[in-house]
């Protein structure tokens, strides 16, 4: 980081902290009448969450640091992500487009953020094959993010000229109007591959079944547990829960991103260990251990 960047970080942090402290001091000096003012700066009831989060964050950052040093990290094969390349290849052979559906939620949903990250990687692959990539979007705020992700993907592949802005389409913020329009795109434009990655709700089956009826190869992924069965039956490959979040690291193979996957795995191992210990202790009548995990 050069001096300019350091100055910028300090400046913005100082502005932010000054703003926050001024507002807080003003409110503390004249608390609103009639309401109970809480002066505590830490919720001790959430200490267990804080410690767990600190452990998870530390594990992730430690593995990222290890990965940066060049340690090789093994990542298991995820069939659904390997299938994306296959799907794009098939679309190229057929001379048809690829449809990427980033879910129906806004950018404040972490699944949509994950989907945008995957979109960037998918766009990079598609740019190499020179086929159209259609991205129908439900939330207007996602439109510029998707445009940037796709543009960057094409740029990274050395094909900025092939980027078609008009293929990033805002449809409607109404759930079923969006589903109807996307079904229409599937039936009229007959994409060879449909990628449904993000946060989905009741429209998941409408989209996946219509896609299946057109004969397109379908890769779906969501962390919305109630929609997973629909994707499993209607799509060729399904990314289940965490696999959606692992996609960016898996596709880019960047060491620092792979490190974060390892960190999550360690956290998972700790949770499994805690579940086993908790089960044994509860069975023999020891209660204090499970009470450590109660969140208020």
């Amino acid at each position, binding site marked *: 980081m050069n001096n300019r960047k350091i100055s*910028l*970080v300090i400046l*913005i*942090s100082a502005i932010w902290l000054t703003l*926050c402290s001024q507002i*807080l001091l003003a*409110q*503390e000096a004249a*608390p609103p009448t009639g*309401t*109970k*003012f809480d*002066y*505590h700066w830490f*919720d001790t009831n959430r200490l267990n*969450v804080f410690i767990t*989060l600190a452990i*998870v*964050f530390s594990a*992730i*950052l430690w593995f990222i640091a290890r990965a940066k040093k060049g340690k090789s990290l093994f990542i298991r094969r995820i069939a659904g992500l390997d299938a994306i390349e296959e799907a794009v290849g098939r679309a190229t052979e057929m001379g048809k487009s690829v449809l990427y559906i980033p879910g129906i939620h806004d950018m*404040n949903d*972490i699944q949509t*953020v*994950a989907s*945008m*990250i995957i979109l960037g990687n998918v766009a990079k692959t598609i740019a190499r094959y020179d086929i159209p990539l259609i991205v129908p979007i439900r939330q*207007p*705020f996602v*439109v*510029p*993010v998707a445009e*940037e*992700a796709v543009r*960057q993907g094409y740029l990274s592949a050395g094909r900025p000229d092939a980027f078609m*802005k008009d293929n990033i389409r*805002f449809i409607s913020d*109404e759930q*079923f*109007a969006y589903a*109807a329009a996307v079904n229409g795109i599937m039936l*009229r434009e007959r994409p060879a591959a449909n990628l449904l990655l993000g946060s989905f709700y009741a429209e998941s*089956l*409408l989209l*996946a*079944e219509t896609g299946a009826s057109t004969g397109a190869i379908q890769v779906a992924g969501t*962390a919305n547990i109630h929609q997973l*069965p629909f994707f*499993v*039956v209607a799509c060729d490959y399904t990314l289940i*829960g*965490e*696999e*959606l*979040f692992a996609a*960016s690291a898996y596709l880019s193979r960047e060491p*620092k991103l792979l490190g974060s*996957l390892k960190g*999550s795995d360690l956290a*998972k191992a700790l949770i499994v260990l805690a579940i086993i210990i908790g089960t044994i202790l509860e069975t023999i009548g020891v209660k204090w251990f499970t009470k450590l995990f109660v969140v208020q």
Partner: protein
Amino acid sequence: MRKEVPLIITFLAGAFFIADYFIPHTGFSDLAAKINGWAIIVLAASYILGVLNILRINYGRVAKREKDWILKLILVLCMFFMLGAGIFGGITEGTLFDWFFVNTFTPMQATMFALLAFYIASAAFRAFRVRTVQAALLAITAVLVMIGRVPIGETIWKSFPDFTEWIMNVPQLAGKRAILIGAALGAIATGLKVITGLERTYMGQD
């Protein structure tokens, strides 16, 4: 600067809202609520982007008389008609906007939702085709749960409903929670990568 400013804003906002979960201080919570309000305003303003996107995409196609251009023209006209009806006539009950909403949009939306029943039937048919051991297990479990949840199940075997509940509350719930824990950790890792600037693909900048 194009990279650093959004990254710093992301870091500060992310760290602030993580801190908000642990800090019960009323002033801090009020500030968080205020910032959330700003986010809603920004999201609302983004609808202008949506309208511009629709216009940009459809105007060119209508102007060039591309395939289905008449449908695109109808789309744009309808959009402006409803926009005008809402702005000038209001959106409360009995207004022109409300009449069109209730008599055109609502039934169309209900139609789309109703289609789901047929799609579930076709998806279930596909799911229950027994081709592998796993598919066989899925089909048998599903049949057992279905029988246990209708009166005939209890007639066949008194404890059938209890058995069904056990399937739902023990093996099914265990699998579901495993997926949820994995997804939650994945979400935390993604959030951390975004906040710390390790992941910036979504910004369109390497």
